[in-house]
């Protein structure tokens, strides 16, 4: 799979305070799957990515392939590597289909 890169027409930012809160909640064992930590605007519409999605998005700069992204996230999360790789692949596939990610 080619190196995904963010569509430059999409503007985005990391919600840093929010992300810190979500990380604390995660450490406390709470479900943070629906909590947005990255905000992006595509054609005037606002969207949020959750913690994992945001961390993948940040790394989609065209220099890493999905396996490298999964390897980096494996350092951050205590999740089985195959599951993490599947999550990254699915995320990249979904956002590429939406046009939010492009092939490098």
């Amino acid at each position, binding site marked *: 799979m080619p190196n995904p890169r963010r569509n430059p027409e999409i503007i985005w930012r990391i*919600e840093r305070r*929010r992300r810190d809160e979500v990380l604390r909640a995660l450490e406390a064992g709470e479900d943070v799957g629906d909590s947005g930590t990255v905000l992006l*605007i595509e054609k005037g519409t606002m969207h949020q990515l959750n913690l994992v999605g945001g961390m993948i998005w940040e790394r989609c700069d065209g220099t890493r392939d999905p396996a490298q992204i999964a390897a980096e996230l494996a350092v951050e999360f205590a999740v089985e590597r195959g599951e993490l790789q599947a999550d990254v692949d699915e995320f990249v596939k979904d956002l590429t289909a939406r046009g939010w990610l492009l092939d490098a």
Partner: protein
Amino acid sequence: MGLDLLDTPVRLTWDLHGPGAAAGDAVLTAMADRIAAAGVFYVTLDQRPLVHPAVAAIVARLATGGCAVTVTCSGSEAELAALARLPAPLPAVQLDAGAFLADGLVDRPRLKQLLERLRGCGIEAALFLLPRKSNLHVIPSLLDFCRTAGVQRFKLPNARIGDTFESIPADDLPCWPDLAAFRELWARQAPEWPAALQLEIHDRFLWEIMTPGAEQARSEYGGCQAANSLGHVDAAGTVYACAAWPEPFGSLATTDLDVIWQSPRRLAVRARVAETPSGCLGCRDYAVCFGGCRGLGELLNSAGGGRDPMCRAPRR
């Protein structure tokens, strides 16, 4: 899905003229720097911004900081001269269509002439109209004008209320009877839709009338964004929930925007937005509109249980 609490606003309106205007270029450019540092994407400079002596410095600081800047303009010669003096890159320009109404009608030749003049300077201006009781009837005509004149963007922004910044007189704020009349007018006079036009309608109920069946396009809405993705700064630098909700949170002249956005007053506004207004209880469409404009509802319709004044009653 609604938006979670954001660190800072995404869109800000900033009045450059008004009561208690902040003095000195240094204060104003520091405010611009604070807005940019907070990661605000879109800043609209309002209240005759082009004739403010510091407009060039403010636009430059915002743009350098990554903000997309828009200036409102009523088309006066003084504003156009100031626009011509601004260094590149020029901000986006929104022409106030309300300044081109004569005897309740759109002065199309004058508006067209101005658009052409701006195009001659490389500026493709958008149009906006602040909806009032007294001007709702010109919306179909304005949209038709957009089609014939090739206007690419038309905006119906939210009302401005409160006594801390320039407001629509209370008796000119549109309410549900005005909307009912507009609905009938729209049914008779809806213009041929300009294919290339980007239409931005802040009010949820105007949107419903003008874009029937387009709910999906607003599916991310998730409710009033005052004090979350929206914010407003008055000429004195005071930060508010939005232009339609004059709840002050702090001063941008002295405090970083991300700090102001964590203030208890801001969080209290979001807590109020999270509650269902009593006037909306039992409404079948609450999950779609979430109470509409909560600033207008809270400040102007306590008798209606905080329901948006544009809404007649809960829908059963």
